[in-house]
């Protein structure tokens, strides 16, 4: 079975790390020395088990009792592997939340039953939508703190439903839990009135969306030249998403769409006739043409462009400014770029675009406009996650400034 890759997100103190600890503990995923550590740290704080202590691994996190960076945890749920990214709730560490959520295909979004949905809940939900998560599980947490009140749960569930529908998640699950007491995490516990699934039931039934259509583009990650017995061969390491690439496939190379045919494929340490997108591929073409790292092979000639208008999450410490020059990692190529026009930040309270501005603040989401030094093939992120995504880097400091996708956030575009 394939791996479940999920992120836990939500506002600070909504109980993300506690839920992670609870899941690890109640599914028997912890060794005895790890449980002993939870008990020892818990005793210092006057509680039976400090469930959250399992997640916070950095000294600064333990000292401050907060999560700064994403921690990855590995669970076996009824025989199925789950990689859970426990992400920080503080707005300041949105870059780390984005990192953890980007390699997941679904999220667990926590809502504090007492405090309700917050701006950070909507920010994280918007990021999940931006990242194309097709599954979101809203966990209305801390039900014990509102006396397990079904009416309170229903009011919040309605808000979650509206938010989830607005952002266009394909599979939406909403359920009440208490991570602290364990209710409805693995067993029903005190939430006796709840007739739906427990969190564990929901998680074990999740499936990633299959990507069956053939890959439209493949990025050349590396070019390797093999010399053997006087012969040289160029082998291309490809990255692509979608259906298989096979020997005999006719593809188009680069911006000039030069036709080439796949002559040989190596994958998994063997010569093969075809390879699926979830496997690695080294390919040899029928003729030696000038292709370098970052070039693209296309199934049909794509539209290439020197302007892009991605929706980005600004991850840098300083705001992004109109006019500034950046370098863009698109696929496996670094391209010089400039932010040309005013940006359109997203209003997270109203979930609509603000009027245009000259800068994009740290940790905000918005559409920006870029002029590129070289043309790139750009599909929408939903159709092709390899060519539809990009990372912006400050050429002076080499710090990552933003991550963006070529995509509408469904719920936002209608009100734009």
């Amino acid at each position, binding site marked *: 079975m*394939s791996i479940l890759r999920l992120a836990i997100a939500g506002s600070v103190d909504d109980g993300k790390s506690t839920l992670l600890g609870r899941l690890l503990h109640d599914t028997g995923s912890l060794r005895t020395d790890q449980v002993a550590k939870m008990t020892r740290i818990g005793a210092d704080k006057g509680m039976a088990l400090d469930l959250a202590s399992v997640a*916070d691994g*950095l000294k600064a996190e333990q000292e401050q009792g907060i999560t700064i960076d994403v921690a990855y945890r590995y669970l076996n749920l009824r025989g199925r592997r789950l990689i859970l990214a426990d992400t920080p709730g503080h707005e300041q560490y949105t870059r780390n939340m984005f990192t953890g959520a980007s390699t997941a295909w679904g999220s667990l979004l926590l809502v504090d039953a007492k405090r309700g949905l917050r701006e950070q809940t909507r920010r994280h939900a918007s990021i999940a939508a931006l990242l194309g998560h097709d599954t979101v599980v809203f966990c209305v947490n801390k039900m014990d703190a509102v006396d397990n009140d079904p009416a309170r749960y229903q009011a919040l569930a309605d808000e979650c439903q509206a938010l989830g529908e607005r952002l266009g998640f394909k599979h939406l699950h909403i359920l009440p839990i208490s991570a602290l007491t364990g209710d409805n995490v693995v067993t029903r516990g005190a939430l006796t009135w709840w007739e739906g699934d427990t969190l564990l039931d929901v998680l074990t039934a999740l499936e990633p969306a299959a990507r069956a259509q053939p890959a439209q583009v493949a990025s050349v990650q590396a*070019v*390797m030249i093999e010399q053997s*017995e006087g012969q040289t061969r160029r082998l291309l390491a490809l990255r692509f998403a979608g259906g298989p690439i096979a020997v005999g496939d006719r593809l188009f190379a680069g911006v000039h769409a030069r036709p080439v045919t796949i002559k040989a494929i190596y994958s*998994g340490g063997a010569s093969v006739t075809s390879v699926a997108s979830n496997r690695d591929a080294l390919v040899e073409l029928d003729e030696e043409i000038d292709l370098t790292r970052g070039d693209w092979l296309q199934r049909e000639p794509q539209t290439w462009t020197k302007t892009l208008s991605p929706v980005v999450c600004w991850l840098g410490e300083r705001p992004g400014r109109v006019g500034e020059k950046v370098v863009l990692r698109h696929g496996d190529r670094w391209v010089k770029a400039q932010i040309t026009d005013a940006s359109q930040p997203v209003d997270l309270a109203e979930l609509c675009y603000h009027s245009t501005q000259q800068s994009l603040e740290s940790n905000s989401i918005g559409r920006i406009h870029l002029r590129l030094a070289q043309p790139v093939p750009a599909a929408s992120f939903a159709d092709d996650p390899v060519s539809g995504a990009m990372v912006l880097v400050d050429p002076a400091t080499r710090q990552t400034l933003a991550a963006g996708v070529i995509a509408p956030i469904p719920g936002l575009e209608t009100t734009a």
Partner: protein
Amino acid sequence: MNHRLDITKKNILHYRYARFGYKNGKNGSFILPKQSLYKDDLKLNWGQTMNARLQELETEAILLIRETYAAFKTPVVLYSVGKDSSVLIHLVSKAFYPMKPPMPLLHIDTGFKFPEMIEFRDRRAAELGFDLVVRRNEAAIAAGTNPHDHGIGSCCGALKTEALLSALEEGGYDVALGGARRDEEASRAKERFFSHRDSFGGWEPRQQRPEPWFHFNTLLDDGESMRAFPLSNWTEQDIWDYIQAESIELVDLYFARPRPVKRQGEQLIPVINADEASEDVSIRYRTLGCYHCTAAQASSADTLEAIITETAQAQLSERSSRLIDHGVSSMEDKKREGYF
């Protein structure tokens, strides 16, 4: 054949040209010299029994390994001879098949490694077609640095971290691949696939670069370097399952055999010196490090199947047998200093 190549700064370029060919200015790729030996003499048994989970992890690791080759000038693979390292070099071999691996192995020898590890290291590196670089902090070894007199922290600092940092600097390696896994330890759970190190080799965990998708920011300033962890998402269980599926050869110390040990508290410490008092117990190692600081476990698991069963039932986490990891956040401190 002597595989301990001595690479000084002076001849590093020559070494690269000789072993890996030269960088072709036109397309930025490496020209690799004769590779044919590898095709006829495959000492790898590519497995046919991998499940979807292992395939997904393997593909992710190969993507990362190729990225170190494509995006950096001088990659090197840190080879500790342990089980995770053994999986890593197997994956490096696969990532470049049908070519010979275009990056050398670097082993930091503390002088306290089990003799079986040294023999195994030299043989495996040669069989898989890797060049092997061995580095020791000879000054510290000559000064008799050991964990009993100097403390575990300073012993590790001198024999491992210092030796590693000077070897990386000397070799001009801008990226070093390691077999560390996030499920090993709390601060490792926070590690990126590509982990940025400042020009002193230090890690700043509060300022890690965001790492969206697999679109890595691999840009470095002068003197900075990167650590790459292709096995980040593998668990101990995955490592053993993969070793079984791919029939990867391991150093015999992982298998239970009667071996001389002494008792230290509840831990069994191996006795290497024949003069020292010891008793023979059927033991195996769950992780392998220096013999002073690696506790053995009493076990009868002498086959892979038995080890997998034993690991699944283990009550203690993996690194509880590594004395160096004890104490609050000791791994984080060591990583900040430049430890792998």
